[in-house]
């Protein structure tokens, strides 16, 4: 069990989770989005918190199937703010969050469909005037309107932050993995569909969207005046680069050499 998976006491905390429609990377079928599912998981591990799900988008059978994936994690109801396809969901989400006034809003870092720029949490935070933090790994405690949270850094490191609530936090893949979605609860879960006026995203229509091209691999360019050097660099094998081999040394000497390298690299704490 990872160290940050402990449940913390957050009695009476009102948590809203913004969920989106995911897309399976191989089969391209709709599913619950991975990061959003982790956000739901994190909300569910907060003991004593009341969790509400919110989704802004179309209401059709494919999307319903995907959203039921979140309901199957043990949530009774999802609020669906109905929008046209390709609509700008920021105004409607802002309005809904302002009305429901949760203390903590959790969401994934980036969507799995559409533009997937990951700017939405920041736009909501700006519109609501709330602080936003990214890469939430765990909520340690919530007291007197201040949450102490752990933020995930690269290389498995964590940073402890104190945030004044209400706040928006995004969750990425360094958060604990989401629990399985159970079929029964997913069927039983209810949809609270609320039709809303939708604003079309005008910029999106001007963009050209196509399947991703493979990125060209960067070539190793050798800048040298002599053709011989350039040829040698192009034809040279990449490996065999100056490794040091210690032969016939006592274990102590070998250990000393390794110790020196570890210290130089700064991995000994």
């Amino acid at each position: 069990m990872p160290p940050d998976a402990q449940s913390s006491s957050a009695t009476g905390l009102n948590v809203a989770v913004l969920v989106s429609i995911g897309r399976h990377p191989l089969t391209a079928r709709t599913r619950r989005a991975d990061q959003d599912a982790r956000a739901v998981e994190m909300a569910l591990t907060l003991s004593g918190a009341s969790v509400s799900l919110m989704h802004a988008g179309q209401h059709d059978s494919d999307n319903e199937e995907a959203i039921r994936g979140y309901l199957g994690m043990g949530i009774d109801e999802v609020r669906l703010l109905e929008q046209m396809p390709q609509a700008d969901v920021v105004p409607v989400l802002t309005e809904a969050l302002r009305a429901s006034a949760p203390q903590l809003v959790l969401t994934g870092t980036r969507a799995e469909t559409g533009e997937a720029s990951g700017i939405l949490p920041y736009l909501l935070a700006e519109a609501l005037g709330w602080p936003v933090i990214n890469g939430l790994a765990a909520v340690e405690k919530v007291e007197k309107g201040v949450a102490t949270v752990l933020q995930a850094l690269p290389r498995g490191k964590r940073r402890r932050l104190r945030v004044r609530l209400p706040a928006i936090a995004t969750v990425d893949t360094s958060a604990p993995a989401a629990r399985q979605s159970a079929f029964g609860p997913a069927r039983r879960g209810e949809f609270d569909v609320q039709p809303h006026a939708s604003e079309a995203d005008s910029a999106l229509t001007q963009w050209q969207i196509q399947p991703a091209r493979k990125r060209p691999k960067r070539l190793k360019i050798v800048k040298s005046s002599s053709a011989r050097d350039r040829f040698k660099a192009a034809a040279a094998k990449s490996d065999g680069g100056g490794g040091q081999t210690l032969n016939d040394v006592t274990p102590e000497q070998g250990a000393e050499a390794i110790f020196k390298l570890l210290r130089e690299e700064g991995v000994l704490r």
Partner: protein
Amino acid sequence: MSELVRRDPRKEWIARNRLHPQHLEVLAEIGGNAVATEWMGPNGLMRRNPHAVGFMGPNGIRRIDRSGASHAAHTNARSTQSQDSRRQVTINTPAFMVAVVPDMAGGRLSPHDRDLLGLARQLADADPENPGAVLAIIYGEHKENAFGEAGVDRLLSLEGEQFDGYTPENRIAALQGVDREIAPRYWLLPDSTVGGGELGRRLSVRLGERAATQVWQVEADSDSDTGWRCTTRGAAGTTDIVRALPRVVLALAECADPISETRHAAEPIELSRGLPNVLGRIEDIGEVAVDPASVSLAEAEFILSAGNGVKDWDNYHHAAEVLGATKGASRVAVDDGHMPRDRQVGATGTWVSAKVYVAVGISGAIQHLQGIQSCEKVVAINLDEGCDMVKRADLAVIGDANAILAALVTRVEQYRAEQEENRDAA
């Protein structure tokens, strides 16, 4: 030594005069004390001594390398001095500014930052009549001293205790101040998890611009309003979105080539107005010590990996604890039941990206070597000198893994004790 070439007319005259008694000595002296193979003849013709060139080949036959490589060894030190041929570029009155906020991970420009500066130069230098200047904005202290070589014209170093630690609100307020005062035409940030990705998103929201994120290609395009179009990755990397280049750009690594042919001024500038002080709602309490055993293998920094050569497993586990390393294993160790499956490193297990990877008793199957491709430093402890892991390793120690691990544990414990003493004394 002076760059000027000092000519000695008398010696040159002797070198031209084959009948002069000192001719050969002077030739040798001019030729950098090597056997002269080429000299100016008395009529101004170049003369060659074919017996003095080349080297003896393996079959005892004289070989002549005409590529110039062996000849280069004969030339004297003055001419082999590698000259910095990069062009110095100074832009005194820039038509516009392109602002770059590099990550400066570890206080230095990362390769991602350099690519981004390359992209900034591309945008700034598009019109040679009205060149723009690249402005780099740095927070706090840094260790970088080659900003000019990376393509920076102006350097704005924002200092103050409000930028210590994780302070996105203060940093954004400072960037907003820069935007008001300098009004750069473009803002470029690295789309990285460390800081640029978050800062750029905050900035785009604050400036009211719709940023392009995950940009991997920028091309000139006369049809678009800005004269540029960019290709960005959307939908979790499965689509490409082609759009006009907006003001705020968050670019991926390798979006452009880093600068290598020019040098720039990196002239320090300052803001005329002071930076606003923001009441932050996010407080940084500091980094948390993480138990290395719980860090997932893919993101671990320091891995001690065990293979078939490890016989005393208690010793190995103890060593991993003392060193503070994350445990890894080869396929054999996992198959034999010594280590859990989720600790397997390699093509079938986890692809690791550790800074230091210590392979204890792992001979280095190709699948395993694939898994450690992106590790920076590899240390091998092995009995077999000829194994593939030793070839891959930056440091290989040939010997009994157990004894070496035990010695390493003793050494580290000794080091820890010394540190403890120093701390007590201080």
